[in-house]
């Protein structure tokens, strides 16, 4: 289950274990993923539920997280978002759009040299904060950026 992966990643030897598992072919992309899809978190209807589901409750505000997203998005169906964490030891980057019907959008575990940076494009139902959660060294950090949406992109 999901908690298992989180615990493996959290442990002191977590990164080494994941690396060992990867080189043993246990995490072979396309064949098997490290954890089951976190249904409870992704289907949560509010931010509190989503944060509880990913273990992100009680996150501390950080100015070491940079969210690069447009101030105004004319079309909510494709809003580019880049998240950069300057927090040493960043292990996970989590992305939410706070007023979407299901706020949690993505949860990335990064390892083996991956930089603490992700760029993607999201759907936004309405004007809202985009929130990033960063997990590093057993601690949870967060930052937000508001994006004004002219035409919502969730169609319901």
């Amino acid at each position, binding site marked *: 289950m999901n908690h298992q992966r989180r615990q493996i990643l959290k442990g002191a030897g977590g990164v080494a274990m994941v690396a060992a598992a990867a080189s043993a072919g246990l995490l072979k992309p396309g064949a098997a993923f490290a954890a089951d899809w976190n249904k409870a978190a992704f289907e949560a209807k509010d931010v509190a539920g989503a944060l509880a589901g990913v273990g992100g409750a009680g996150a501390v505000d950080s100015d070491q997280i940079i969210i690069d997203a447009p101030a105004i998005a004319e079309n909510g169906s494709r809003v580019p978002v880049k998240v950069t964490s300057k927090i040493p030891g960043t292990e996970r980057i989590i992305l939410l759009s706070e007023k979407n019907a299901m706020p*949690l959008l993505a949860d990335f575990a990064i390892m083996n*040299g991956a930089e603490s940076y992700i760029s993607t494009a999201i759907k936004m139902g309405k004007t809202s904060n985009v929130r990033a959660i960063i997990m590093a060294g057993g601690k949870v950090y967060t930052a937000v950026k508001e994006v004004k949406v002219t035409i919502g992109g969730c169609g319901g």
Partner: protein
Amino acid sequence: MSGIRIKATMSGDSAVIKCLMQHPMETGLRKDAKTGQLIPAHFINHVTAAVAGKTVLDGQWAGGIAANPFLEFRVKGAKVGDKVVVSWEDNKGGKDSVEAAVA
């Protein structure tokens, strides 16, 4: 043919990997304009990437990632020629994978 377009190029001592994946990313909340029926959820829920045989990214997604998803990430210490594999699975058991070499 993979439905994933990928570009992996060195920038300084990191590989910059950009992907575009063909997928409708239906949330399950959208109604068909003609029938008024909900369109069933159909979205990529797992994405992984490996460089030179090591997993670098293990992601879970919701239907709230934009259709035909774009994903960019960077990997420090990668080298020209390293093999990059990006794979996804969706909530209906669909999957796709692509391989490229860092240029």
